[in-house]
């Protein structure tokens, strides 16, 4: 089968009718990202598998904007193929109507086929699905279209590969023979049983044997189911362990580095806790605020000393004055010959004033003229009396101290106290210096540790990156589970061996019982039944083993061809060798494990590019083998299958693909260069000269019509340019 033409009409970015004319062999479609490559793939995928759902999402926005209200247009994807000289067309389409209120209505969803008779040229309509399944069977389509590198890995599922091999190898023709072989043998066995039972002589023993065999068969079946489920579990665990082994070194390294990181973080935290920057406390509780107090203290002390001296001088003067008054008092007493003086009020004030007015001393009856000694005496006496009237105050003043409160003493004491404390205050400066030095050193240590931490974190990122697991938790969880899985695997293995031992024992017993039964048959059944049974037993063996042989031959060929492609795709690069390992399970189930091995027989985990090469190699090998064993070839469509390759390797890959037999359509973003505007935006795209050296039958360049508004979908139109 060859795809002659694919037409895409008003489908997403494909505005109007776009035609791709293909040829047998290699067809390449180039396109920058987001310019229509994947939409081409999606159009073909929609043609094959589309359903009548969300169709409005497939409509070209440009076409929709362009048409008038109440107008309609068609959205379609169609394929024209040639097979056995006949031409077929398969088309999936629907109609879009733009209503008056600017809404869209979808109708006429059609999947139709059409066959053109090669001789008459007559076109015959056929149901699209029926025609598609006839010319391009589902099982083959499944392994013909691949989007991106990850989808190439159809062999992750071991059974998928076994099914694929069954599909393409000669073994597929023999499957029905193994079934019929079993069926005929069973019928022949029944005929023998019936014949034996006709002989009454051995009937009892025969019945017992049949019952025992039936019992053993049931037990065998029970064990088979148990063994199968144990095997399933073992396979899952084995896969997990194998998967974990890829990461175990990284996980171990990660755990070590996490410990180191934790240690560093603890050190940093400890150092940070030692750094004391609680300066408010230090300032007030530890008197740092007094670091410059000494000069103030000096000034204060000088002032207090001066003040104290002044006070003492005042006190001394006061005390002297007090002493003089006391002296006068004593002198008066001596003048009166120590006789007791008259009271001050004798004569009375009135008498004294009268005598002064009269200028006569009426006590001694003498004249006392103004200014004379007696007059002055009387005057003095009056004054003394008058003064005596305030005697209480004067008496009071007499005991009053000069300073009522002795603050000077307290100030003196404060000075002395400060003086004593000066020794401690002088230490503050060095304390501050020490603390700042200590803090600075710790901060330096913290900085160094942080640098170390940063390095360790980078190292950790590297480890996680190398493990190709984005999630650190997942990596650690794999490591955590690794030991548990190994333990479980050992347990399952033990259980498996026990079950197998039991099964072998049952099979041994069954063999013995069947031999016993055969012996009875030999003596009781008709000989031709026995001979027929023996021949059909042999035919069953021949059918079963021939099928297995064909399957194994196909695997050997597939392995050899896959390795041929692997080395061709990776010229001068290390790839290892692909090994297909057949695993046979109870109940004749088969799985195929694909791995890469180094020459020493060691399994290794390839990088993305080698993994992609591995998958493509197997697909190409299957395709080549399919062509050999089938009388028909089928196209393969790959969307960006070699993203991890790089342009040179992609070029080598394409030249290799060119040499392979069946039709391939490959969508790539390689070989496209661009001229840039000063602001870095793309001015113009061009096809690089390197593409000229790529062998191909047909090539297209899908690119957006320019200019377009990147925010307006209705300006988007992919143009198809044949190269």
């Amino acid at each position, binding site marked *: 089968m060859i795809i002659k033409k694919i037409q895409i009409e008003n489908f997403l970015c494909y505005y109007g009718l776009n035609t791709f004319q293909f040829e047998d062999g290699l067809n390449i479609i180039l396109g920058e990202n987001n310019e229509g490559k994947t939409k081409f793939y999606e159009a073909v995928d929609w043609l094959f598998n589309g359903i009548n759902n969300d169709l409005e999402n497939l409509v070209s926005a440009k076409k929709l904007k362009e048409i008038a209200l109440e107008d309609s247009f068609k959205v379609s994807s169609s394929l024209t193929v040639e097979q056995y000289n006949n031409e077929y067309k398969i088309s999936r389409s629907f109609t879009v109507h733009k209503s008056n209120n600017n809404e869209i209505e979808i109708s006429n969803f059609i999947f139709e086929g059409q066959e053109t008779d090669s001789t008459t040229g007559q076109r015959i309509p056929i149901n699209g699905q029926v025609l598609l399944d006839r010319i391009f069977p589902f099982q083959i389509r499944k392994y013909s279209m691949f989007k991106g590198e990850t989808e190439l890995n159809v062999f992750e599922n071991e059974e998928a590969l076994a099914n694929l091999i069954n599909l393409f190898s*000669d073994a597929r*023709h*023999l499957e*029905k*023979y193994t079934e*019929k*072989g079993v*069926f*005929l043998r069973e*019928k*022949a066995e029944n*005929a023998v049983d019936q014949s034996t039972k006709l002989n009454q002589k051995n009937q009892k023993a025969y019945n017992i044997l049949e019952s025992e065999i039936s019992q053993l068969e049931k037990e065998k079946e029970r064990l088979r189911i148990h063994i199968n489920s144990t095997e399933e579990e073992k396979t899952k665990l084995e896969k997990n362990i194998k998967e974990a082994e890829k990461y175990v070194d990284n996980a171990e390294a990660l755990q070590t580095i996490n410990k180191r990181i934790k240690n560093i973080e603890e050190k940093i935290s400890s150092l940070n806790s030692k750094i004391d920057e609680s300066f408010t406390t230090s300032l007030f509780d530890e008197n740092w605020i007094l670091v410059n107090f000494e000069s103030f203290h000096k000034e204060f002390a000088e002032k207090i000393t001066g003040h104290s001296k002044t006070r003492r001088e005042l006190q001394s003067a006061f005390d002297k004055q007090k002493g003089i008054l006391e002296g006068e008092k004593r002198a008066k007493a001596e003048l009166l010959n120590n006789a007791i003086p008259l009271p001050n009020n004798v004569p009375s004030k009135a008498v004294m004033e009268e005598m002064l007015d009269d200028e006569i001393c009426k006590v001694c009856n003498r004249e006392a003229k103004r200014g004379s000694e007696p007059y002055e005496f009387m005057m003095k006496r009056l004054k003394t009396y008058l003064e005596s009237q305030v005697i209480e105050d004067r008496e009071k003043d007499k005991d009053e101290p000069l300073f009522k409160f002795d603050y000077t003493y307290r100030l003196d004491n404060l000075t002395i106290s400060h003086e004593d404390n000066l020794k401690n205050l002088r230490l503050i400066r060095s304390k501050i210096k020490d603390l700042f030095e200590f803090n600075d050193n710790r901060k330096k240590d913290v900085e160094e540790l942080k640098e170390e931490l940063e390095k360790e974190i980078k190292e950790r990122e590297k480890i996680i990156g190398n493990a190709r697991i984005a999630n650190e938790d997942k990596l650690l969880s794999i490591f955590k589970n690794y030991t548990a899985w190994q333990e479980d695997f050992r347990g399952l293995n033990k259980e498996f061996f026990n079950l197998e031992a039991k099964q072998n024992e049952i099979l041994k017993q069954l063999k013995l019982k069947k031999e016993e039964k055969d012996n009875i048959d030999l003596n009781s059944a008709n000989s*031709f*039944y026995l*001979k*027929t049974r023996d*021949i*059909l037993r*042999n*035919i069953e*063996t*021949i*059918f079963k*083993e*021939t099928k297995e*042989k*064909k399957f194994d031959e196909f695997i050997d060929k597939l392995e050899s061809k896959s390795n041929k492609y692997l080395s061709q795709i990776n010229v001068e690069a290390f790839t290892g060798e692909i090994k297909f390992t057949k695993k046979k399970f109870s109940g004749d189930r088969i799985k195929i494990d694909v791995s890469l091995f180094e020459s020493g027989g060691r399994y290794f985990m390839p990088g993305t590019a080698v993994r992609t090469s591995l998958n493509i190699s197997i697909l190409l090998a299957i395709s080549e083998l399919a062509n050999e064993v089938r009388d028909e070839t089928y196209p393969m469509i790959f969307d960006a299958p070699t993203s991890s390759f790089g342009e040179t390797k992609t070029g080598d890959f394409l030249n290799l693909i060119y040499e392979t037999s069946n039709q391939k359509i490959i969508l790539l973003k390689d070989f496209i260069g661009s001229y840039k505007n000063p602001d870095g935006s793309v001015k113009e795209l061009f096809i690089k000269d390197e593409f000229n050296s790529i062998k191909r039958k047909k090539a297209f360049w899908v690119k957006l019509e320019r200019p377009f508004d990147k925010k307006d979908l209705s300006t988007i139109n992919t143009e198809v340019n044949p190269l």
Partner: protein
Amino acid sequence: MARKDDILKSFLTHELLESKYMLRNEELPTTVREALNSDIPIVKAIALIIEGLEKSPSATDYELRTSILQFLNSAI
């Protein structure tokens, strides 16, 4: 070579035919048509099965069982 002849060939090259039936490769038929005329019961039985399964529509289980068992029971 028709597919059914290929299938026949793949069965007749099984070692059991030589080890158990002493049949050498060169004395074995190469086509189903020849095999259907063979005097060797196992060879003819295999040919009958192939003929039954490869014709269109293929033989039912009943037809297959009847033809094979009847042939073998009478031929040996």
